């Protein structure tokens, strides 16, 4: 678990690739917030727990965690899978959550049964996956090198991350069929930020996600793919703190 900074608590939840380390994005956030960046159970060096087998379990895990550390007025931000976890947390209990920031989140179903909403990056070549995920594929290397380039320890972690992703998201694939209709219960402000070039989940999907909340804004981040906080951190920080009128009035 990485933690730094002071001020309002900011919980960042990572995507299926695993924890990203202390990124420029988190560094900038820590200038004005108490940033918590955990590795989900089963990812990175976090051990897997046999009680935790679904995204719902992960959401409850983090809600218990907010209680354990008595965190209040938390900004919960999530990328991809992390966004899905954040949305589930808010459906269950937003009493300790001030607002959500969902970045290229997965977790809902928008299209008919035989139309995929989410690219199946588990069953494609690495190069194709990177092309879908990144506006500038060359930029991926700093965060997620090709598995064959990893040290044995890091490769073992990468393979464990893949196993955890499969554990939590195999079926229904990358979503909870009940989540979309439950989002109308989330009465806190929500910002949905989306990389314009995201090939894993499209901006149209993101717009539908935003439309499912009672009060959400939807903002496209240009020159970014599935990880706008990695490709355009300054722009994303700007949106998080000054983007939404409701949000701006609180900071």
């Amino acid at each position, binding site marked *: 678990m990485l933690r730094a900074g002071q001020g309002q608590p900011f919980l960042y939840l990572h995507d299926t690739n695993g924890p990203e380390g202390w990124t420029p994005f988190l560094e900038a956030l820590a200038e004005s917030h108490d940033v918590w960046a955990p590795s989900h159970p089963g990812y990175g060096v976090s051990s897997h727990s046999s009680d935790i087998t679904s995204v719902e379990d992960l959401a409850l895990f983090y809600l218990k965690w907010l209680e354990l550390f008595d965190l209040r007025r938390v900004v919960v931000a999530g990328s991809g899978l992390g966004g899905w976890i954040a949305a589930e947390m808010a459906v269950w209990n937003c009493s300790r959550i001030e607002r959500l920031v969902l970045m290229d989140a997965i977790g809902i179903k928008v299209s008919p049964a035989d139309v995929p909403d989410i690219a199946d990056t588990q069953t494609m070549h690495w190069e194709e996956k990177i092309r879908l995920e990144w506006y500038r594929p060359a930029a991926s290397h700093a965060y997620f090198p090709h*598995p*064959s380039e990893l040290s044995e320890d890091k490769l073992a972690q990468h*393979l464990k991350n893949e196993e955890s*992703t*499969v554990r939590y998201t*195999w*079926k229904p694939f990358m979503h909870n069929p009940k989540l979309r209709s439950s989002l109308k219960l989330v009465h806190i402000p929500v910002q949905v930020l989306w990389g314009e070039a995201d090939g894993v989940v499209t901006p149209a999907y993101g717009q539908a996600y935003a439309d499912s909340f009672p009060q959400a804004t939807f903002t496209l981040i240009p020159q970014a793919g599935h990880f706008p906080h990695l490709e355009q951190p300054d722009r994303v920080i700007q949106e998080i703190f000054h983007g939404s009128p409701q949000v701006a009035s609180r900071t």
Partner: protein
Amino acid sequence: MRFYHFSEMPYPMREEEYMPISGSARVTLPNRLIDPVRVASLYNDYLDEYEYADELGFDLILNEHHQTITCMDVQPSLFAASLIRRTTQSKILILGYPLPHRDNPLRVAEEVAVLDCLSRGRILCGFVRGVGMEHHPSNVNPVENVERFYEAHDLILKAWTHGEPFHWEGKYYHYRYANPIPRPYQQPHPPIWTPVSLNEEQIRWAAERQYVCAVFLSGFSIFDQVRLRYKEISRELGYPEPGPERFAYMALCYVAETDELAEQEGKELLWYMTTGQPHWFTNPPGYRDVNYRMRIYKPQKGGWNPRTASWQELCEKGLIIAGSPDTVAKKITQLYHEKEIGHLLMMNQAGFMSKDKVLKSIRLFATEVKPQVEHLGLPLNA
């Protein structure tokens, strides 16, 4: 010794025909490329081969796979039912039902009981975990594979033996009244077989229950290690010393008039070793542990590649048992004495191997090899 005829019932295609389209022989090879008219001929030819093998005194083995040109037997119970009525003496080994991929294991209990009654006790029942490639067709989560296997197995055994309805609220399977009709003909149930690889947990599970353990296309070295470990564990647990009746070995097999002809004609069987698919199908995360999956990115040093090995190497390592009748008889005798193989599972058909050659090989085996080797280890309880 007992000898089992086997075909996976492939739809043979050359790599050039499908790799550019799907990059895979399994899962994603589009089913529009599979001609049902050709399929009809193939199924009927394969069953002709099985029925002929029965006439000549072989036992029979069937398996199950999905969404693959390597095997069109999607449900061995179907073919077992046909064979039971059209054959007379053979044991019919189903090796095996991939239990994790069943949402309703009681159906397996029912099917096996039906087949066992219909055949008056000729069924040998195999339970398998299923290969990695089965997870996308069934969409069962790979991380659940082993637990589902154990729970389904325990449920099926209780369903066969309990004698009255019972309640089952397990982790994966739930029944308020489990009471399948009929019960198996063989009591308490048909002999159970299970495939085993170099995996301590698998070997131990099989040895604890004294199930027949089968090693598939892995070569003599792995077979030896499995067999010796199975015997060690059996001793530890206080069982009588397991003998050849507990050990089954599968190889690609071909008998021809001479060794040279056997190599020339038998090479068609190697098609089975050449079909490939991407690692995310063969080895999905959660199916095997992280250490095993490291090999996707860090190739093993000093390993040999069955896909590119020569005929001689494949014969030496035991993936192929082939040659003239005398060569094959000598080999089998050696296998029995050195390796205690009681059951030889003979993949007599694979790939483009034509029906007439399969029938010839079976006939030569039955008339010229079997008389030399069938006395080995008799009587052998299957």
